[in-house]
């Protein structure tokens, strides 16, 4: 998504948090990633120091791999960290995650434009 499209998309969704500099999330998924981390922490899946150290490692890894780390990719790191922690804590394995990702891709492909995408058992082919 281009930055103008992202801006238009976030402007169209009133529930996205904003501050003086504009939306603090650039897209709804960022807010979801943020809220999921807080929820899993509340449920005791990981401690906050565990989270912070995993996130710091992920950002370092991404920087080493050429990420510009300008703050715009921040929630991508957040999400990658969450996926890794969820796997290492035995909540959802990488295989499960990939299976669901493929299923969502399948659901997106078969859903006509403009219709909400819904996941059905058939998508797990």
């Amino acid at each position, binding site marked *: 998504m281009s930055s103008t499209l992202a801006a238009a998309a976030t402007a169209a969704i009133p529930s996205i948090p904003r*501050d003086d500099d504009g939306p603090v999330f650039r897209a709804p998924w960022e807010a979801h990633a943020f*809220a*999921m981390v*807080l929820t*899993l*922490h509340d449920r005791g899946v990981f401690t906050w120091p565990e989270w912070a150290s995993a996130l710091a490692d992920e950002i370092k890894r991404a920087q080493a791999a050429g990420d510009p*780390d300008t*703050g715009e990719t921040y929630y991508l790191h957040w999400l990658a960290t969450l996926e890794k922690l969820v796997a290492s804590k035995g*909540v959802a394995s990488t295989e499960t995650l990939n299976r669901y990702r493929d299923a*969502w891709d399948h659901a997106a492909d078969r859903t006509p434009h403009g219709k909400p995408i819904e996941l059905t058992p058939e998508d797990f082919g």
Partner: protein
Amino acid sequence: MRALETILTEKGYVEPAALDAIIQAYETKIGPHNGARVVAKAWTDPAFKTALLEDGSKAIGTLGHVSRVGDHLVVVENTPQRHNMVVCTLCSCYPWEMLGLPPVWYKAAPYRSRAVKDPRGMLADFGVTVPKDIEIRVWDSTAETRFLVLPMRPEGTEGWSEEQLTELVTRDSMIGTGFPRKPGAPS
């Protein structure tokens, strides 16, 4: 993202409605106005200010704010001799409960590295001039400890109420990358 959320929902780790409630809370209830109220109270209530500087989390707890991630909040006071500024060089830890969600620049590598190496130059980029004879102290946040700057009360606000003062406290003044508004300046 959707895949992860679906799995966590199916396994009962998250509920979509609860997620929305969190997002909603950060949008409407949690923001710099929380920190601004704390700062304005410290400006008008000397006993609260002493307690706040002694143990930030405890003093703020008496106002009904409780940290959800169990971190400790340390409040650092600006004085005529010292300007404080907050950064998280590792991963952008931030006192969310007081300031809401961090702005993009706070999370960006240029701020995270330069705030430590060249704080005066960094502040100049924000349009903030700190005279040479004032020491700049940079506080690096961790998962356990976060920092909130207590800015100096603007001159010309003698006799102002806590509510009036709250309006002068900006988010950046509590990060240390700005000053409170001056009385009469547009908000």
